[in-house]
């Protein structure tokens, strides 16, 4: 091959690499950068505290697997979930005990109430392959901000979503996975 004839080939090759990179970015990103997210989380317990999104994700995180199913049995996940354990967030405003309930809500008015047993991982879990109930190891209830390595966007229930995750990739009932969490109140 003549030396001069390599230039267009290399040019095409470079374009190909750039295009592959662009396509890969398109496929593997939620299109959201953490720095762009403007979201506050209100914690209410013995005291009240408002954390910005960046303050939340700066806390020590937990990673585990978990998914959920809907009323009609549609399976979502399991996903690799990364987030802050709810118990730690509650600890910032006085902590929780057996007489407390934890009220987790979103701006659209959706609300779920959890007990300390829930927060400690007491859920019925299901095998995603058979949808049969199966026992589980330790589970954590997380305020998830990354799913399968992707920052949660609106369509994924972000930027902060409740998730139930552990070492086994099991499913829980979908109504627990509160989307767009903006308030956690201990009562």
């Amino acid at each position, binding site marked *: *091959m003549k030396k001069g004839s390599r230039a267009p*080939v290399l040019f*095409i*090759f470079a*374009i*190909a690499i750039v*295009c*592959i990179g*662009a*396509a890969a970015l*398109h*496929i593997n990103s939620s299109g959201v950068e953490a720095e762009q997210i403007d979201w506050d989380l209100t914690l209410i317990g013995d005291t009240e505290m408002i954390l910005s999104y960046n303050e939340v994700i700066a806390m020590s995180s937990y990673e585990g697997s978990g998914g959920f199913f*809907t*009323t*009609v*049995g*549609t399976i979502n996940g399991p996903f690799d979930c990364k987030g802050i354990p709810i118990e730690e967030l509650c600890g910032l405003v006085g902590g929780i005990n057996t007489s407390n*309930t934890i*009220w987790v809500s979103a701006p*659209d*008015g*959706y*609300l*779920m*109430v959890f*007990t300390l047993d829930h927060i400690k991982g007491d859920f*019925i879990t299901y095998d995603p392959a058979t*949808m*049969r*109930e199966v026992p589980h190891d330790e589970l954590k209830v997380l305020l998830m901000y990354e799913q399968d390595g992707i920052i949660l966007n609106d369509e994924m229930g972000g930027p902060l979503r409740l998730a139930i995750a552990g070492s086994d990739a099991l499913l829980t*009932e*979908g*109504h627990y996975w509160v989307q767009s969490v903006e308030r956690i109140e201990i009562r």
Partner: protein
Amino acid sequence: MKNKSNISLAVIAVMVIAVIVIIAIVYLPGQEDTKLTVIYAGSLVVPFDKMEQAFESEHPGVDVIMEGHGSIQAIRQITDIHREVDVLAVADESLIPDMMYYTYADSYVMFSTNQMVIAYTNNSKYADEINNSNWYEIMAREDVQFGFSNPMLDACGYRTLMVVQLAEMYYNNETIFNDLIECNFNPAIIEEEDFDNDTRLVLVPEVIKPQKGKVVIRGGSVQLIPLLELGEIDYAFEYKSIAKQQGLQFVELPVEIDLSSPGYADIYRKVVVQLGFQRFESIQTRRIAKPIFYAITVPKGATHPQLAREFMEFVLSAKGLKILQDTEQPTIIPGNHY
């Protein structure tokens, strides 16, 4: 050498073509089917699956996107989450005027009904003994386990509490609710009698926590079916359509308590269930017992209103009603409500 460079060129050419194809798939709009979004009550999953297939076969180029939810959650997709939904079918007709009039819908059509039953299998304890006059005694026996769906999450769940409360009145036995429900939960699910002109109020706490292992609670009534089949529970409160679709045995309850008949609406409405917390902003926590009617509507914000009306008319047509009947979903003569 020349061969080598030809191979390199060919490899690069293939890569470039592959990249162009990927980009075309990812970025360029294609010739797509018209997507019709239909959201329906979870208990309609079997008939509406068939409805989708039948409608698509008659409408080439239309892709019906089916999505099942609990009825309140289904409406909430429109009223709270503001999704563009073409057709909505719910298991409680009163939810449409209560939650949608007149911003999101201004009419609906009732098309189906249902009734509450006690489902079981041949392996359930006392299966050869249970009938519609002794079911509450058998379910209260120490060695019997039964289940119902969480009343905070599922209409079948709060309808179970209504049925048990109505049973006290029908059988003139004031211990039924306590024996089956109240004593099996901590905190208790409490009944308050005569709180308002001969009406009975059932108070559901924020947290539904069964005690002693006698009662099993799951988020949806469909999740109780595998537990019945595996013998982990003996009985479950279910809709008759679900019991029949799943091939289960069931006890038909007296019409005075099974929430099936408009003729007994005055009796049903004597029971009110007060839920422990307001799960959705758009609906209050008080549920009044009433006959079960399914309803369908085209919401005001439908993306394809004409096609949506065609789908609704298909459901209400002789063909659509036959699909419902063939899948054990009881039909009624469709009636408009404005």
